């Protein structure tokens, strides 16, 4: 997968709204420069279906919400040098973790949506990945190397962090990062 002179970048979304990925795209024309420096090896914006080996940087949006996401995250961690929590859901759980305030939240949210508001065939779906008991921030599950908070983080901040990392420097988040 390694292409001459380019750094392997992966992006993934777990349970979130895709807003952090949209903010990534909000780099607008800077994406054209970025394209010269990175090889996108795995992403919801691309078609490689299996998380590859030897990824240099992985940006992860979203909280860890179901069993499938848990497995994918662990696999990605094992295959990534630098893992970054992108946005408030990955960093803290944020809106995805609002459900955690309810007792047996996995059951409570499903009951509310599929039994109490359906007019026909009310039933809880079962042939799909199972919800975890609660939604987790990324670093509760795996080691995270950098955190970019924000809902979403601005395109400028995402660009800053990537640029620093691509130049081999450590991003300085002081006065740059904020929640919400």
């Amino acid at each position, binding site marked *: 997968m390694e292409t001459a002179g380019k750094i392997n970048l992966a992006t993934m979304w777990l349970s979130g709204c895709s*807003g952090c990925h949209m903010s990534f795209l*909000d780099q*607008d024309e800077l994406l054209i420069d970025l394209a010269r420096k990175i090889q996108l090896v795995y992403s*919801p914006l691309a078609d490689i279906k299996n998380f590859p080996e030897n990824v240099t940087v992985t940006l992860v949006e979203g909280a860890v919400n179901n069993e499938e996401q848990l497995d994918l995250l662990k696999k990605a961690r094992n295959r990534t040098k630098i893992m970054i929590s992108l946005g408030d859901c990955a960093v803290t759980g944020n*809106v995805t973790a609002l459900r955690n305030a309810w007792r047996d939240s996995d059951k409570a949210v499903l009951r509310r949506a599929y039994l109490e508001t359906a007019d026909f065939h009310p039933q809880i779906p079962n042939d799909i990945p199972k919800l975890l008991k609660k939604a987790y921030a990324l670093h509760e599950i795996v080691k995270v190397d950098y955190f970019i908070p924000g809902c979403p983080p601005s395109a400028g901040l995402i660009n800053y962090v990537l640029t620093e990392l691509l130049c081999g420097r450590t991003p300085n988040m002081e006065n740059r990062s904020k929640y919400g």
Partner: protein
Amino acid sequence: MNDEIVINPITRIEGHAKVTILLGKDESVKEARFQVTDFRGFEKFCEKRPFYEMPSITSRSCGICPVSHLLASAKACDEIVAVNIPRTATLLRRLMHMGQIIQSHALNLFHLSFPDLLLGMDADPAKRNIFGLLESYPDLARQGIRLRKFGQEIIEKLAAKRIHSSDWIVPGGVKWPLTKEKADYLLANLPEALDLTLKTISMFKDQLQNLDEEVQNFGNFPSYYMGLVTESGGLEHYDGKIRMVDPDGKIVADQLDPTKYFEYIGEADEPWSYMKFPYYKPLGYPEGAYRVGPLARLNISSHCGTPLADEELREFKKLGKNGVVQSSFHYHYARLVEILFCIERAKEILEDPEVLSENVGAKAFVNRSEGVGVAEAPRGTLIHHYKVDKEGITTWVNMIIATEHNNNAFNKAVTQVAKKYIKAKQLSEGLLNRVEAVVRAFDPCLSCATHALGSMALDAQLFDSEGNLIDRIIH
């Protein structure tokens, strides 16, 4: 015996889904299912919160169309506080919505779908994305980036933030007015956006000649269509009333009150998807399945109301019988017509003498215990419904999301494509990509729809009816 092919995850769509293709005894495709695989539970965790938090929380359903959620939510809250918002606030909310439809449609076309249409359905999957497009069609990819940026800048100039601009849209109107400087900036950039759109429409129509097979087979079937229309039956995205049109173009219901949606829309569940299945109640489930979104809006509307979009709409309607275009592939064309409309409408709003007025918000507290807000999101009709107690704390929340309405149509469409292209005994990545491409045509927004999957490898396995593995693709 469960013989199936699984495509997981579907990529270049918004959200988490997979497709399972079920095979019959003779190894032909029996049925295909579009399955949504994640769920966040907004309807539950939005309970017991102050109603004025709703725009801010519910817009987090979706990072692509947060503005539609802000609008539907704020409209539900306007009802709860029982105010008619100032005309300028309506103009500014509409303007923001135009920005969002432009950016969302541009995203689907350039960043997600054009890699299939221009690089080819069978192109190298490592290159079949926006970065691959930048390499092979740099000018076109740059056009897409610029057009999406124009839409995002409308939002940013109004609300100071591109995504989740929930500081600005509030119950009763908007928080601050538009300045002349910002209006002038947008007006100065508008001609370029218009030019890019016209160029893209012309390119798309040239390409159509080579895409006849896709047009014929990508979700090409009769269905009902639903959406908001103006009083005169024109294209509408913010206010308006519900119209339902049958497969022959006959209006079966018109000017229905959108806040009474529960009288004519029901929701069904299936055990194999986190996304619910709405249906038109008078016809029942599943016969009452309908489509929403750009294609449906153009099918139900007699006109757009702006000159260039009206001209393009006439061209569009020629592709169908009685002005109803059945092929889901033409969601792409419909998106282009809508972008054109939104740019023209944005110009009209920016030139309205009242757009810079400083009267942009009404202040009031809880005056009603219930509110429903409805808007046309980029992907179709979006409904927010809240009940609150005397203190304004939510006791019950229901959301019907644009993408959900199309749930039945997704399944019909993936089945049609799978039947056409997937012949048992042999699979190829490119054939499976066609199944994904039809999903992209609908532009589903699944974070929204399941009020929000992880990904596993694409491991497509083909078994014969004895359960023997006859073909397998992993990548």
